[in-house]
């Protein structure tokens, strides 16, 4: 597990949302963190290289810009890693996890249209030979707004 500097923690605590929509967003972040813009740029690049930060960008409402679904499969444990790699190779698959359940492989498929999502699920089902459950979002009660991290 990565240990972070106080500045890195403040950056993550303060900017999971509300990135300034003005020409120099990193300079504004730097002002609020009490450092200079170059420090923020270097810190973000380092956190990204270390894998702590995925990106500085947008989390998009899944059904606004396209379509997405949560999919689940039950695959034999001995084949799980290989099937998971096969599923991950689809560019439409953005999250792919093993979970503790008989349905042990869970992944998110995102594409421009519901039909395109369906084609990916059908393709995986056909090629792997295991049913794929299609569990699209029907109602969101709490969206991904980032969350406060416990540092200790």
């Amino acid at each position, binding site marked *: 597990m990565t240990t972070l500097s106080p500045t890195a923690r403040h950056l993550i605590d303060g900017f999971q949302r509300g990135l300034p929509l003005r020409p120099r967003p990193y300079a504004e972040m730097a002002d609020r963190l009490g450092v200079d813009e170059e420090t923020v740029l270097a810190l973000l690049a380092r956190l990204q290289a270390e894998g702590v930060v995925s990106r500085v960008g947008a989390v998009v409402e899944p059904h606004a810009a396209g379509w997405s679904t949560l999919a689940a499969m039950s695959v034999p444990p001995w084949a799980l890693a290989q099937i998971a790699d096969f599923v991950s190779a689809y560019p439409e698959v953005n*999250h792919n996890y093993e979970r503790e359940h008989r349905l042990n492989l869970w992944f998110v498929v995102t594409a421009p249209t519901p039909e395109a999502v369906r084609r990916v699920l059908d393709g995986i089902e056909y090629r792997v030979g295991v049913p794929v459950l299609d569990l699209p979002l029907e109602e969101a009660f709490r*969206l991904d707004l980032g969350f406060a991290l416990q540092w200790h």
Partner: protein
Amino acid sequence: MALTPFERRLLTAIEDGLPFVPRPYALIGERVGASEAAVIAGLTGLLERGVIRRLGVVVRHHELGYRANAMTVWDVPDGAVRGAAAVLVGLPFVTLCYRRPRRPPLWPYNLFCMVHGKDRGVVEAQVEEATAAAGLSGLPRAILFSKRRFKQRGARYAPAPAMKETAWTPSTAAS
């Protein structure tokens, strides 16, 4: 929430995140053939309409020690889902909460919530607290802790290149 062609280009251009340069919106503008001001106005509009939920640092929680990630699901009578969800989203440790369709017999659950934590025991206690608080005790429930993470990145909305049409075999999976 119909998107203009410009808005689609903009979302595609920032899929991998904003560049770490002093004027990132200007650089995105160069990529989509628009001014810095047009990029800022476009992103502002997408945020105001809720197409973009948040713009900021996207953290990979696993790398920060959040290894106990529990997708908790219940089979809740349809009429009781919203009431239960209203309680769940008020709990500080519930980070996501959704309704999804049941797929019986394999999958009887319709209410999903996510609890991320560092310690499995703490997360299990939080799930029990959530179950009791939302009046879900006694209903069918499952807690699906995550194990291996095979892939995690932002969504892509541009049409993807077609995959080669081959049957799955161990050799294609390894390639």
